[in-house]
């Protein structure tokens, strides 16, 4: 923000203890988060990297999960995440279009904004309870891929809405005016001009949302996740294994907690690579878009 004011020009001439002390303190504490991230990454990678192999990610678990790979677990997480995104992106983007282009200031808009804001703060385990009560019980999906994906979709909806809305609002007003001046209707303008321009931003938000969803455990604990399924799910109504839940179960509830430690590390590393990899992809895409914008 203030790199425009060179520090040297404004610094007092004599040595100021208070200035130096607090600035050094901030400089040190400011790196805490990064250092912790680094430490945990190195620790999990160090313990998990020798477990990872082609067999580990392509073979199902054997011998009561003490040996073998985590193939169905990875597939479960991928299915859950993909299905969740297929459901949530259309709803989220439509809501964002409504908020950015159609909504008029007033009671309704305030209510919608308030609900999105509140929804974003609801704890993930409460979404799990909601999914249990509605998708598993009332709609009778049972503990299943479908129930879990829908629960995750409800959870990530506020995030998708706000990132999409930001992307839509970043489209310059002149684009819209030009399209309207050519005689296009409002809907044509949205479909042909605004959405294509905002699409990279929406995609980036969706990728970051996918990263968040794939690491979540609490919402799928009572809606989708199974301790063990023999293979990949064949229908939407079957329970699935998932990476985060697999780590939790192996580390706390199994009878072979010590024996399965290597598998726990391997699963944790796989999950981290998946989540942070997608995160990195999103961040890089966003940085490139920012650089490329010519308007």
């Amino acid at each position, binding site marked *: 923000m203030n790199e425009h004011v060179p520090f040297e020009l404004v610094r007092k001439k004599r040595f100021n203890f208070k*200035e130096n002390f607090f600035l050094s303190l901030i400089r040190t504490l400011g790196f805490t988060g990064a250092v912790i991230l680094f430490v945990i990454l190195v620790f999990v990678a160090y313990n998990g990297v020798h477990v990872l192999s082609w067999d580990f990610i392509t073979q199902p678990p054997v011998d009561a999960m003490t040996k073998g790979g985590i193939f169905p677990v990875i597939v479960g997480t991928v299915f859950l995440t993909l299905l969740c995104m297929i459901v949530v992106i259309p709803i989220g983007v439509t809501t964002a279009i*409504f908020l950015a282009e159609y909504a008029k200031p007033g009671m309704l*808009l305030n209510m919608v904004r308030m609900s999105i804001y509140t929804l974003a703060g609801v704890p993930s385990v409460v979404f799990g309870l909601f999914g249990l009560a509605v998708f598993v019980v009332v709609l009778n999906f049972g503990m299943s891929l479908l129930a879990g994906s829908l629960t995750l979709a409800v959870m990530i909806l506020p995030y998708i809405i706000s990132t999409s809305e930001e992307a839509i609002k970043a489209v310059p007003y002149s684009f819209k005016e030009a399209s309207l001046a050519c005689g296009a209707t409002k809907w044509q303008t949205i479909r042909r001009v605004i959405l294509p321009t905002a699409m990279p931003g929406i995609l980036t938000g969706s990728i970051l949302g996918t990263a968040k969803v794939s*690491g979540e455990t609490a919402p799928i604990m009572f809606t989708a996740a199974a301790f063990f399924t023999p293979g990949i799910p064949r229908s939407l109504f079957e329970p699935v294994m998932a990476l985060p839940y697999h780590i939790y179960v192996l580390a706390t509830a199994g009878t072979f907690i010590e024996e399965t430690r290597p598998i726990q590390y391997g699963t944790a590393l796989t999950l981290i690579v998946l989540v942070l990899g997608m995160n990195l992809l999103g961040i890089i895409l966003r940085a490139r878009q920012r650089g490329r914008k010519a308007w």
Partner: protein
Amino acid sequence: MSLIGLFSVIILILIGFFLFKEAFQIFYKAGALKVIFGKAWYPTSDPPSFGMFPLIMGTLSVTVLTAVIAIPLGLATAIYIAEVANYRVKEFLKPLIEMLASFPSVVLGFFGMVIIAPILSNWLSPVLSEKLPALLRDTNLPFLSTTLADFCYNKLFISSGLNIFTASLMLTVRAIPVIASIAEDALTAVPRTYREASYSLGAGKWETIWKVVIPAAVSGLSVAVILGIGTIIGETMIVLMVAGGAAVVPHWIFDPARPMPAAIAAEMAEAPYKSLHYHALFGVGAILFIFTFALSLISDFISKKYRAVRIGEKV
């Protein structure tokens, strides 16, 4: 079009409706006050007892301890990124904080379980509760050799590494990026002219941050803190894996606890459908929902007020 807009409103209403519908049974049958302030959470004994006070106190103690550690760290990170760091460090640190924000909490819980907990109970506890008191007693100084030595001996003994303190350490990792990213937005929104005015009066960098930038951004910073606290209250996997799980009112930071999200996550699988236990867990969920709902309302109120001030002041 406005129907789609209402979708999120409907979802929120549905969440509230189903939570309270399922929770109603327990509050009605056992008495709301008795449930909320009851000191005994024995859901599976016969007859069962559903006093949620230990769970609420578990959440409260974990939240307070985490807030004490995480708020200074989160705000310092935000100040560093927004005010102190140069452009390159900033471009490097911001994505890292963002990555930390979406770091799977189950891995944090796992890390706390296999690394932090053993370190505390096997290494830190003997040093603090045996070596340190012995050392202090040898000094024969009035306060040190008696009161402080006894305190270390009695209070710094960590019988299990899975306790409130460990949970708070891991929850801090969860809360730092939330607090830091919102606080950084608030600090960046302070107009540059404020800082320039301060510098031109001869103020130093820290003086400017402390006396100009922070006061100007204080409402945004409080929103960051409130939302950070909301994250801590609702975080499930970390407290489930490292808080120890004992449903008793904790008295000290090295006591185990069972915060509300942990109780829900741990017990829901074994609670028979439509049993009192099932309803009681929905009751816990409803209390959790009310807590976070209230925090959202407060922070929304503050940020609305703040926005009005900002627009008026924008130079």
